[in-house]
């Protein structure tokens, strides 16, 4: 890092210089002359957020286990640092070596949320890498994207040379191996490499496909440009998580990050099938790790990190079939070592007194539950499968256990929603307050009760039963937010809601096709960066970028997509079939719930991907 001109005086003049220095315990240092492939893992958000990301932790470890591959990291600089880097000509550099990202062989971006797209492009610019794939010459690194956003890769397809669909542990290694081999035997050219990479399962090379459109703007066809290029790109999964590599040590940040703790991934997938939830569909099939594996990984990571908290993560932790065994195993030593356990994704219907007492994170602070909708009718529509009784039971336990603050997550703008459902949110919150006062006075926790209602705006995401739905208009979302504000009369209920403008842009970026890429590029040119941060999000800048590139935003938001239409993401095969999603959509309209995978198989199609320790047959 000392190889960067002016870096010392620049670091002295920016906020939190610890973000930009690297040198952490656990960071992997190799000899750059003796490795065959240098991989830069880029996270399009700040260091504090990126360092906490489990995917980055896993893939950094996977790549660095290989002797001849050196994986380094880079994060998005905060605005003060970015401005100084631009002013003094400091290119985006990797934290381990301090070398410019543009000198690497492969550069991978992790796209975790749509609002990070502009940050990713800003990072490319700061690295001196052309943002459009077609403008990159032979000497430029291969630019890769992966992460949950790329299940609809089309809005950013023109910016990436290669997109990893699905889990990256195996795919990234195969890509790196192919790169090394082609460099060695002299057959490497950019296009030859990309053509061969297209044969790797889970790899999508956007430049090898052509999209044509109908007069009404819908997609006419999505076709490979060459014979032999797969017409459908199948999502990649890791079959056996007990055997999959998991980091034994972590890169230990000096500065505080969002999750300074050991993160233990318990299983992938979800048995629930909430109809609005993209993660619940795209991470199928469910694959569990055994408690033995998890206990071993937890102990190892604790000893190598010194963190005093272990967080058990998955989409819905209480659905883990062997949770009791796992917590028993962990509690054998965690209490003595003053290590606390946290379970961040508890469902209402599984919350018990015993769990509350066992899990320390539940012991401190408030509790958060997600009923998602205000009436049973709408909860049935979205297949949330929790009842108001579940909520009453859960908060009663919480209040008796000494908690006095409860946070409730809801969505508005859900399909079939009426004002009655909105009022139901207020009524549900009131019901929670009533539960507190229903307790005899001596049993109530001190300090009164506080209920926070946090409402986000529904976005019809690709690969969900609601993928065809129209998004509520901005006016309607705002009207509903206002309606709820008026419906909440109890002063013990605090109401917060998401900016509906962000949700509109998010919907366009989530549901768009290749025609919106110029708008993203233009927004970046006009200064869009760190859009996931409220203070930098600028709705008008976005809307004018769409307007000036000829994008009709309503086409992607308030227009319902036809079931016979070719959707931008139809070429991706996530395992779950379109016919299952359609069936689920019909059941939603019929207000019928669907049992969880644990109760019975609904034939979603994900079982054909294989995978061990799953519910499906």
């Amino acid at each position, binding site marked *: 890092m000392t190889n960067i001109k002016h870096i010392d005086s620049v670091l002295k003049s920016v906020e939190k210089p610890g973000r930009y*220095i690297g040198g952490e315990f656990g960071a992997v240092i190799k000899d750059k002359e003796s490795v065959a492939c240098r991989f830069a893992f880029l996270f399009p958000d700040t260091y504090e957020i990126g360092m906490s990301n489990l995917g980055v932790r896993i893939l950094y470890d996977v790549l660095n286990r290989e002797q001849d591959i050196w994986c380094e990291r880079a994060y998005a600089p905060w605005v003060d640092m970015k401005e100084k880097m631009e002013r003094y000509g400091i290119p985006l550099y990797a934290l381990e070596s301090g070398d410019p990202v543009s000198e690497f062989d492969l550069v991978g971006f992790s796209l975790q949320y749509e609002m990070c797209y502009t940050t990713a492009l800003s990072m490319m610019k700061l690295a001196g890498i052309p943002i459009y794939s077609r403008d990159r010459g032979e000497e430029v690194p291969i630019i890769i994207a992966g992460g949950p956003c790329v299940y609809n890769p089309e809005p950013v397809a023109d910016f990436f040379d290669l997109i990893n669909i699905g889990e990256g542990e195996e795919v990234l290694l195969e890509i790196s191996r192919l790169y090394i081999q082609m460099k060695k035997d002299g057959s490497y050219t950019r296009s030859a490499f990309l053509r061969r990479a297209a044969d790797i399962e889970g790899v999508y090379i956007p430049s090898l496909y052509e999209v044509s459109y109908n007069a009404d703007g819908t997609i006419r066809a999505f076709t490979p440009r060459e014979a032999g290029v797969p017409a459908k790109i199948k999502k990649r999964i890791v079959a056996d998580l007990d055997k999959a590599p998991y980091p034994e040590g972590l890169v230990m940040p000096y*500065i505080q990050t969002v999750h300074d703790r050991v993160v233990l991934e318990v299983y992938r997938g979800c048995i629930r099938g909430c109809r609005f939830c993209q993660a619940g569909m795209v991470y199928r099939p469910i694959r569990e790790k055994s408690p033995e594996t998890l206990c071993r990984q937890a102990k190892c990571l604790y000893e190598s990190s*010194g963190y005093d908290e272990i967080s058990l993560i998955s989409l819905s932790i209480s659905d883990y079939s062997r949770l009791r065994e796992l917590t028993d195993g962990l509690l054998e030593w965690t209490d003595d070592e003053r290590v606390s356990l946290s379970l961040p994704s508890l469902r209402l219907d599984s919350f018990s007194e015993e769990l509350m007492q066992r899990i320390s994170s539940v012991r401190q602070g408030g509790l958060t539950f997600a009923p998602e909708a205000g009436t049973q009718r709408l909860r049935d529509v979205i297949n949330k499968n929790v009842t108001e009784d579940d909520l009453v039971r859960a908060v009663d336990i919480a209040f008796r256990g000494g908690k006095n603050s409860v946070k409730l997550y809801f969505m508005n703008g859900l399909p079939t929603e009426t004002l009655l459902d909105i009022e139901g949110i207020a009524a549900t919150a009131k019901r929670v307050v009533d539960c507190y006062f229903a307790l005899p006075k001596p049993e109530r926790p001190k300090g009164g009760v506080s209920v926070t209602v946090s409402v986000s705006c529904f976005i019809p995401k690709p690969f969900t039963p609601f993928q065809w739905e129209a998004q509520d208009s901005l006016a309607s979302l705002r009207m509903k937010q206002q309606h709820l504000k008026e419906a909440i009369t109890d002063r013990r209920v605090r109401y917060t809601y998401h900016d509906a403008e962000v949700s509109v842009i998010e919907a366009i970026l989530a549901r768009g096709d290749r025609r919106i890429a110029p708008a993203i590029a233009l927004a970046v040119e006009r200064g869009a960066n760190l859009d996931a941060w409220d203070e930098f999000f600028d709705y008008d800048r976005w809307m004018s970028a769409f307007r000036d590139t000829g994008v009709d935003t309503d086409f992607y938001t308030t227009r319902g997509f036809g079931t016979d239409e070719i959707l931008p993401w139809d070429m991706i095969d996530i395992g779950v079939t379109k016919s299952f999603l359609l069936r689920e959509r019909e059941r939603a309209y019929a207000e019928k719930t669907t049992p969880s995978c644990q109760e019975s198989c609904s034939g979603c199609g994900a079982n054909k991907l294989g995978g061990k320790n799953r519910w499906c047959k």
Partner: protein
Amino acid sequence: MVQINEPCTVRVKFKKVGRLKFVSHLDLVRTVMKVIVRAGLPLRFSEGFNPKPKLSFAAPLSTGVESVCEYMDIKLYKRVPEDEVVAMLNKNLTDELCALLAYYPESKFTELGFIDYRIELDLLSATEALCLDIEKALTSPLVIVKKGKGGEREVDISPMIRNVSCKLEGGKILLECCLSSSPAEFLSPELMIKALKDKLGILKEENLTEEGYTVMRTEAYFADMRPFR
């Protein structure tokens, strides 16, 4: 629960150099706590509802300053041989932040009296003459405005500065001095440099990337100038 069989305090002399000078004191404390856990040292925790490891530092280092003479005290519930303490810690640290020495101390941190600093000024106007000016400025009365609880007041910092030596070396100005560092009279090198800036008009903001300075702590002493231990 662990048995407290021989409570004791071990002192660790450590260095913090290179890019790790940008790690703030608060972040350093957090880091060291995790390092001690990783190292497996028999750390003593405070009593009470929210047990915290018992750890203290001598004169905290400002962000951006390097040092090869930092000290921290770690309370243990069991005596561990000195060499082992160093080895256990260093297995969990990097070259830029690591233990140099460990011992069971007889002094307190409040007995710290002076610290030697090595300051490199990278100036466009680095000349022998400027070196003399700097030396002169630091050895005659140098008044600064200090903001304290009782509002602003003027302080002459020159009695807190000793052993000044200033010379040109490789195009840069090398300034070595010893600053009072007792709890009652602590002079930070930043404050002294600010006084020099104001008095001599050096280190102007517009020269941010051409001019700059680095500071390193090189040695610590008791009030009577015996090496601190």
